[in-house]
Every structure is written in C-alpha cells, then in structure tokens.
C-alpha cells in the first residue's frame, strides 16, 4: 500500500496472457510410461538400500591399511569403498526423490497472491495508539530520572563481563614488548658468554670451515634446545636464522657491518619482515632470498635489502663471529626486532639502501 507504487499502476504495453494452460506430462497421459517411471524411482531407492548395507559390511570387512594407487589417484581402499558405497546410497535417495517429484507428482503450477509486507494504515495507527497507551501506562514520559538511571544501569551491567576479557593475554606494554617480541634468544649472548649457532633439526654446532661458497644453512641458537612446549615455539618463531656464505668480493658489505661476518658468511633472521613466514628460498647466484608466502625478495648480498614484493623493511642481520675452536657464535641480539611490523615498532634503525 501507501508508498509502494507498483508497476501495475502503469498500464502494461502488453496484456497479461495468464499462466500457460497446464499440459499433461507425457507420463500422465500414458500409463505404461507412468509405470516405467515409477519402476525407475523404486530401483533408485532399492539400490540405495543395497549400497547403505554394503557400506556397513565394507566398514568392518575391509582393512583400513591398504593403499590403492592408479596414476594420480592415491587413496586408501577402506576410505574409497566405504565412502563410495555410502555416497552412492545417499545420492540415489536424492535422485529417486527428484525423479518422483519431476515425473510422478502433479506438475501443475499454482498461483498464489502476494500480500504486501507492509501493514494497513489502520493497523499502523492502532499500533501507534497502543504504543502511546503503553508509554503512558509506564509513566516513562513523566519519570525522566527513572529512565535515566535505568539507561545508566543497562549501559554498565555488561561492563564487568567485558572487563574479564582484559586478561585474554598479557598487555603489550613497553616493558612486556621488550621482554617478548623485541627480544630473541640471542639476547642471552655476550662477548664473554657467546652462543653457538647450531644446525636446525640436528643441533650440530656449525664451524665456519663447514660452509662452502654458495652454501645455505638453516640454523638456531644453541640455547633453544633447553626450551619446550610453548616457550620453544615462541622462541623458535623469532630466533630462526639462516647462514649463507658468499664470495666476499661479489657482495656489498657496508662499513658498519664489516665485522658482522666471517669471511663471507653472513647471518640473517629467517623470519620475513612482511608477515613472518620463515624464508629459505635462496638463490646462490643472485644472492636473492624469496619468501614463498608473498614473494618478498631480499638481497642477502646487500645487507638484506628488499628488491621485490610487499615487504617494506630489510631482513635483520645478526652479528656473528668465530670462537677459539672455529665455531660460529653470536655475541649479541639482533639490533632491531625481527619479524613483521607492529605499531609501536621503532623502524628508524633498520638498515636502508645507501646506509654505510
């Protein structure tokens, strides 16, 4: 009603011919065809029951340790047989019911009038009157202060509930950040008590002489091994490093990082500065390191500067050295926080192209 000016207000250019007269389906006009269609539906349901029963037999009878491999198909026999019989059992019910609905049920289309979702003017007026009666009865209009206090109470009652969410996690205050995301296990290293770099997985300490030019080593600080469970995972998500050895003559080493490397062995954080994937995709000839997640590319022959992709900051480099026995060591933490950016991160100290 009211504002809903419908198209019917305009005279249509063509008169409504009305719904097409119902035409009997082929089936309805021929009892033989009808019987045949019914038989097909019954066959579907019958087969479905058979499949359902056989899937139960298969579930118990077929061992679930047999693999079947044919070309690019590589499945588990139990899963395939059980699933296929169960699936066909279900599918056939669907097919049968649809065939029933399409072929055996009355397919005459019916017409139903629509009602306008809007209520009539009288109803609307009635409701408004009721509403104002209610408002009057409750005294809401007169008792402003009562309403105000109720509003206040309602506004605050949920507050304690929301407050309980405040302890969902530690608060990343400056001090907490310094102890967590701005620190790695290398922070425990000092020149007096250096930390050895060990091969990831095998925990074997790495000697400078072990690395050839063109070599990449995925490494960890030795002290990671003491950690377990959540501490281990959290520490590893920051302390993972890669060591690469390049021909010192083919790379650019800035003056400030002259003593960060050992005869062409450089150590970088393995955690991408974009969103934190571990990066190891290193091209030994171009010295480019590509992140497989979003294709940020860093030049390890040039202080880890970004050469392509969405990362904005160079890969943090770790100062390394060798101890008396020739093992690679770290004596200090990264100079900047590793991993993806966060709001409070002071990114003015990261290495930029052109820094000395």
């Amino acid at each position, binding site marked *: 009603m009211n504002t*809903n000016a419908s198209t019917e207000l*305009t005279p249509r250019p063509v008169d409504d011919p009305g719904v097409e007269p119902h035409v009997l389906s082929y089936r309805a006009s021929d009892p033989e065809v009808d019987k045949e269609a019914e038989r097909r539906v019954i066959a579907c349901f019958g087969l479905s029951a058979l499949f359902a029963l056989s899937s139960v037999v298969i579930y118990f009878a077929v061992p679930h340790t047999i693999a079947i491999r044919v070309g690019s198909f590589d499945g588990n026999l139990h899963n395939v047989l059980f699933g296929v019989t169960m699936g066909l059992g279900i*599918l056939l019910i669907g097919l049968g019911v649809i065939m029933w609905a399409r072929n055996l049920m009355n397919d005459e289309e019916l017409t139903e009038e629509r009602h306008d979702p809007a209520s009539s003017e009288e109803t609307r007026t009635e409701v408004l009157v009721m509403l104002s009666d209610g408002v009057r009865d409750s005294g809401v209009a007169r008792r402003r202060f009562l309403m105000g206090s109720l509003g206040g109470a309602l506004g605050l009652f949920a507050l304690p509930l929301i407050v309980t969410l405040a302890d969902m996690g530690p*608060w990343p205050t400056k001090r907490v950040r310094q102890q967590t995301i701005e620190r790695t296990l290398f922070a425990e290293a000092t020149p007096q008590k250096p930390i050895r770099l060990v091969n990831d997985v095998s925990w074997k300490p790495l000697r400078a002489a072990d690395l050839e030019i063109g070599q990449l080593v995925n490494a960890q600080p030795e002290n990671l091994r003491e950690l377990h469970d959540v501490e281990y995972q959290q520490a590893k998500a920051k302390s993972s490093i890669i060591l690469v050895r390049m021909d010192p003559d083919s790379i650019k080493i800035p003056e400030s990082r002259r003593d960060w490397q050992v005869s062409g062995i450089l150590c970088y954080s393995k*955690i991408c500065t974009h969103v934190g994937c571990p990066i190891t995709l290193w091209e030994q000839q171009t010295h480019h390191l590509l992140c497989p997640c979003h294709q940020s590319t860093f030049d390890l022959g040039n202080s880890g500067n970004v050469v392509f992709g969405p990362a904005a*900051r160079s890969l943090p480099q770790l100062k390394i050295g060798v101890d008396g026995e020739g093992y690679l060591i770290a004596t200090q933490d990264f100079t900047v926080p590793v991993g993806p950016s*966060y709001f409070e991160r002071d990114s003015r100290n990261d290495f930029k192209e052109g820094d000395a």
Partner: protein
Amino acid sequence: MAKPAPVADTRDPGSATTTSKRAVSARDIDLPPVMVKQGGPLAKWADDRLGVGGLSKFLMRKIFPDHWSFLLGEIALWSFIVLLITGVFLTIWFKPSMAEVEYVGSYQLMKGMMMSQAFASTIDISMDIRGGLLLRQMHHWAALLFVAAMFTHAARIFFTGAFRKPREINWLIGVGLLFLGTMAGFSGYSLPDDLLSGTGLRFADGLMRSIPLIGTWAEFFVFNGQFPGDLIVSRLYMVHILLIPGLILGLIAAHMVIMVYQKHTQFPGPGRTEHNVVGYPLFPVYIAKMTGFFFIVFGTITLFGALVSINPVWTYGPYNPSQVTAGSQPDWYMGWVEGAVRIMPGWESHWGHTTWSWNVFVPGVILLGAFFTLMALWPWIEHWFTGDERNHNLLDRPQDNPTRTAFGVAIITFMLLLQFGGANDIIATHFKLSLNAISWFLRFAIFVVPVIAFWVTKRICLGLKKGDQERLLHGSPTGEVHRDANGAYIEDHVPISHEEAFALTAIDAPEPLTVAAQADAHGVRRTDGDVSAMRARASHWWSESNIPHPTREELEEAHSHHGDGHEIEPADKH
C-alpha cells in the same frame, strides 16, 4: 494436561480456536481413510498442544517458483547441514590442545615426532580411525562448497536485483552469513595445527599486528601473548564449533523465515506479476525437490570425500615456526585477499617511533572490510542512484539493468584477478611465467581490467536489450530470406508469442532522478527528500542505458505495419 482424546472431534477447551474449526471442516470433507485413521488423530494431538494447524495451513501449499538459479542458496544450506553432521563426528575425536606430545600412531612419516595434541589427533582421525578420513575430507569439501555456493547465490541475487525493496534485510543477513562462512572456514582450517594452517595463522598474526594503534594488543589478546602462544587452537575451536555455527544457524533461520514471509521472487512470465507467485506448492512437490537436492548435495560431498584428496595434513606435518612449503595458500575464499597482499607494493610509514604497515593493513584489513561493507550497503547505494521506492517481486534479467550488471562483473573481475595473484606461484610454474611479471601485470590490471569489463558488459547488456526491442517490434527472424519488388533481400520475421511479449515488457526500469521533480512519473511523491545536482547526474548516468518499452500503440503500429525492411508475415496465430 489433558490426554489426547480418542475421538477426533472432541473439543478441548484449552486448544486453539482454529483446531475446532478444522476438526469440523475435516469431517465435512471426504478424506481418504488413511488420513482419518492415522493422520487425523496424530495431527489433532499435535495441534491440541501446539496449534500446528495454523502454521501448516500457512506453509503446506505455499508456492515456490521453480528456476535452477533459485537452488544455489540450497546448495549452501545443504552443505551447511553436511558440515554440522560431519563436524559433530569430528569433535568426537579431535583434541583442541596445543600441548606437546610424541606421536605414537601408525603413520610412518611421523613416528617419534613431537607435535601438538591437536595435530596428533587430526592424524589419528585421518589414519587410524575407520571412516575418519572420509568425514574429515567431507567436512573440508563441504566447507569449500558452502562458501562457493553462498558466493554464487549472492551473485544471483545481485544480478537479478532480488536485494531490492522489500528484501534489503535478507540481503544484509546474507552478507553476514557470507562473512561468517569465511570466518568459519578460516577458524576451521587453522585447527589441525599443521604446517599450512600454522603458516596461515602466522599470516593472521602479521595481519593483526598491522592494525594501527591496537595491532600489538590484538595480537597479544588473540594469541595469549607472542605468536603462536598455547591457546590459539582451543580458542579457535570455541569460535569454530560454538560461536560461528550458532550465529550462522540463527541467521539462516531468520533468512528462511523472512524469505517465506515475503514469498520468493520470480522471473517475469505469463501470469507472473508483482502481485502473485506462480510455482509448485511446498507440499508435496517443493519439499520433495528440496529433500532430493539435500541428498544429492550430501551424496556428492560424500563421493568427494571418498575419492578426492583435500588438505592432506599428514604430508604437511606439524607446525614448526622455522618451516614452510612452496605453494602456501589459504583456502580459495581467502585467495583474493592473499593475492592482494602478494601484489601490494612494500609501503610502510615510519613516523616517530611508530610503524604503519600499509603493505599489510590495506590489502588485508581495509580491502576485506571494504568488500563486505560495499556489499552490505549495495541496496542503498543502488537506491541512491535510482531513487526507486517500489516493491520488487519480479526479478530483473541481468541485461535489464546494465549498469548494475556491469558493476557486478567489474567486481567479480577484480576479485578473480586478485585470486590469480593469490595463486601466482602455481601459475608461474605451470604456465612457465615469471612470478615478478605476474605481480607487476596484476598491479595495473586490477585497476584497468575491471573498467574494461564494466564497459564491455554494459555494451553486451545494451545489445541484448536492443535485441529484445527488435523482437517486440518486428518479431523473431525466421531465417528465410526473400527478395522484394525493389530487388532488396529481406529476412522474414514472425511475431513473438503473446507470452514472450508480456514477459519482455513486464518490468520498468526506474526513471532517472531529476533535481526539480520531487514526484516521479506516477505522481507519487518520493520520500528521499531533495535530490542534489550530483545525485541527479549520477542517476542520469546510471539510467542512460535504459531503453523504454514500446508503448501499446507503438506495438500495434509495428505489428500492422508492413514492408519497412522487416517484412512480417500476416499474423495467423492470434
């Protein structure tokens, strides 16, 4: 409460008034014996207590129009039911804990490895629990289908204009469902704690961190400290099996009730008007078709689970922050966001001691938010252009509203290009292209190609509409050519059927808004207040491709007219 009366017509003083009426009328009508003997008493028992009679009367012969595109939403609904069923089974075995355990199951390549309990139990489900792999794979396939079907359903609603008044609320609910569906998917594939899902969580962590001002807080609150923490799996588990499914169920219920109350839309056709609905009654035809389709969707998903591998977590192995695999992608519905993140240039601002990572925040948070916001607001955006206040129960064909259709195609093109971006490494290796070249191409293409798609779509729609106009005025070409007296070759045309002519002229595009006119062509005052000059211009641009239907007179004129190059055979049909 009173026990059900043994005789059908006993009046219970407490029962609803409709019951007594129906009981009387039921005796007056010749019902088949089965209804009197079994159906009758049972129906009465239920009606005495719940008054189901009224509801059944309302629903049972409710008409649903039949069209294949009206079943897309059903695919989503049935996939969701399969998700609930398979999901319940998975919770029987899954352990949502990140506590570290040593693997002791039968899978060879994990023997003796340390892993989270969540991952170990996922391997157990896949390897050692009979039928577990089937249910896991079904659950994941159903999830991919659920979101894909919601997308196609939304596209159908969009291109046919079914979101217009009075259905804006159901469109909003649908957008909410789409958003919740993707969130359900993300929280679900993060649960197994395998290498791929851990990589996804690492990305989510980076995404949260990138939010200006509160990013670090969001990270610490969600992960209970630094990534990965020890609670994220159990928290996501709650989100995945309780919070989101609960919300989805509620929204689906509202979606259905509103749809039934407002009645389904229909395409124009003979006898189909804005004021009726033509189709099959809910009981029995539509209910049979719905049930049948449920079993078909269920069966298809089961066959997928049996035959097609999905997310082989045992190959990925447990999450380890120092490991990653080439080809790390999210599930497809996050693929376009992934693509945007990949092709985004590395822009970041370092102001004072703060970092603003536009490179992650813009494609990851802003774009995702903008998409859903634009989608949610679309009915009002279109209304701003058209000022259309009418109720719409007849659907547009896509070509009936070229500007809307062109806009939809442009958005889909944009998302498809980003989807390619999200798969750029797979595309690079399989089509021997350069990764960097793809990224550079897409950085420009996402702006240029949608504009081209918009323009081309609009042209195509216009062409189709002009074709309709031709058919209305000059009839349908027969393919027979003859030569007229002047030596010109003319193709014979036959008038189109009355039914088709009615369908082609059944809906009117809204008139463009003008600054001066405060009332539309029908003399009905618009409720949208003053029309600014800008809005009038926008409205004009929107409607410039409108072709008004020929009037009754023009049609009669065309049909009686002969020999203007579109020779029409004498009409002998009507």
